[in-house]
């Protein structure tokens, strides 16, 4: 195999995938604002995407906050900076780890579920059936999931922020010898609105990515069980990578001086 041909083929495949995705997003976005808008379906999706993700996101945030507190204490010890645990925990959780960890966990849960559901609907002709019943699949299937994910992800991350800080406080007070009220006061004095809000913006963007990847890969899946399996994997992997890349871009934009 000619290596140049290989590079060319890979590049073309990559670019055409981006093109298809952009086309999909361009079809999906207008369907969010044009009637009919399926409020009941959007509500159902908010339950499935947001509410049912609470346990997994909460646990992730708790242990991440705890581990962060330990690491900062041990690392800070080298410079005599171990007393900064509360400040760095709250900063790390609200700005980076809250949105990113929640985003990755929800990507695993929700992108996969959406891709599997829409993929199965595709291969069993249920999506075609929607069209024959005068229902636009973008409005009926894609728009409710996109809206639900964009609305619920910031709420989930707000909860994750609180639980993450709580995780740090538990470790700080129980095993690192911090005084509880001093820990909480340092946290509250240090954190600013913009720390939290920047994380919530990220969460909304990640929510969009999660739902879009699930819908896109599910909607275009073909070839039976194997195709749906592949769509599910691709949805999770691409959502996770896009979340991490978007996180870097948003960090550099939101915190540039």
């Amino acid at each position, binding site marked *: 195999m000619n290596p140049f041909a290989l590079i060319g083929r890979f590049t073309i495949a990559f670019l055409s995938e981006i093109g298809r995705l952009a086309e999909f997003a361009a079809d999906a976005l207008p369907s969010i604002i044009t009637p*009919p808008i399926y409020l009941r379906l959007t509500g159902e999706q908010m339950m499935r995407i947001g509410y049912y993700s609470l346990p997994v996101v909460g646990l992730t945030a708790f242990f991440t906050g705890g581990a962060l507190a330990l690491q900062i204490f041990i690392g800070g010890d080298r410079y005599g900076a171990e007393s900064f645990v509360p400040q760095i925990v709250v900063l790390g959780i609200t700005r980076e780890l809250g949105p990113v960890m929640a985003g990755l966990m929800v990507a695993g849960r929700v992108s996969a579920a959406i891709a599997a559901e829409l993929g199965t*609907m595709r291969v*069993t*002709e*249920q999506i*075609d*059936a929607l*069209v*024959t*019943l*005068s*229902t*636009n699949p973008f409005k*009926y299937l894609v728009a409710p999931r996109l809206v639900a994910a964009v609305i619920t992800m910031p709420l989930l991350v707000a909860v994750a922020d609180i639980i993450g800080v709580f995780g740090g406080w538990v470790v700080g007070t129980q095993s690192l010898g911090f005084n509880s009220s001093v820990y909480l006061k340092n946290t509250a004095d240090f954190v600013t609105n913009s720390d939290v809000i920047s994380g919530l913006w990220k969460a909304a963007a990640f929510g969009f990515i999660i739902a879009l990847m699930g819908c896109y890969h599910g909607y275009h899946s073909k070839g039976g069980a194997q195709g749906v399996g592949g769509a599910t994997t691709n949805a999770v992997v691409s959502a996770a990578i896009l979340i991490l890349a978007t996180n870097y871009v948003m960090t550099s934009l939101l915190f540039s001086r």
Partner: protein
Amino acid sequence: MAPPKIELKSVMKRFGSKVVLDGIDLGVQPGESLVIIGGSGTGKSVTLKCILGLIHPERGSIKVDGLEVTRLSSGAREKVNRKFGMLFQGSALFDSLPVWENVAFALIQGHGLGRAEAKQIALQKLAKVGLSKDVGELSPSELSGGMQKRVGLARAIAADPEIIFFDEPTTGLDPIMADVINELIVKTVKDMGVTTLSITHDMISARKIADKIAMLYKGKIIWAGRKEDIDKSGNEFVDQFIHGRAEGPIKMEIVR
């Protein structure tokens, strides 16, 4: 003669380098039942999907009631699709909804009926295909294949369409259930006076539900005529197909 309800002219469709439809010409008159027969992979399903706008042909014209539908906006497409009902090969019932909501789907989503009213109509339609009220509350996955087909039929006729498509209506059913479905199709079609276009490779079904039969082979209509004439078509491809012979001009691509 009345203008055709559906008219296809030199419709071409290819997937990659494979030509699936190679210039299809077809007309369906109002109130007529046309059945397209042909082997697997000859482009029968693609023809239906082109008419529904699920697949866009590269070339050719498709008219529904005289309106060109190959390049419609999605809003206009939805309006045209209100004329259609379709029974899918695998029934394609929505497994997230109970049976009655499947049947009532077009009424609630497309026509904006209230749920209670739509449910009444859905139960009437279910009765029409011989299913009781209790079935309406079940989930599609709890039904047998034959029952799913009947629910699919009830869903296809629920919004009183002008045109109904049947995609392999008897495939995968036992001979008796197949005949029940055929009977139901003939009966509902006669009752409603609708135009139907069916695709099948089941000749018993084709003879039962068709007024006219067209045979599709390698992306072209190679014969079309009244069903009474199919036994004296004089076309050796048609003869081979309707008698189900392995030997003849149609060669299966089998490595021996």
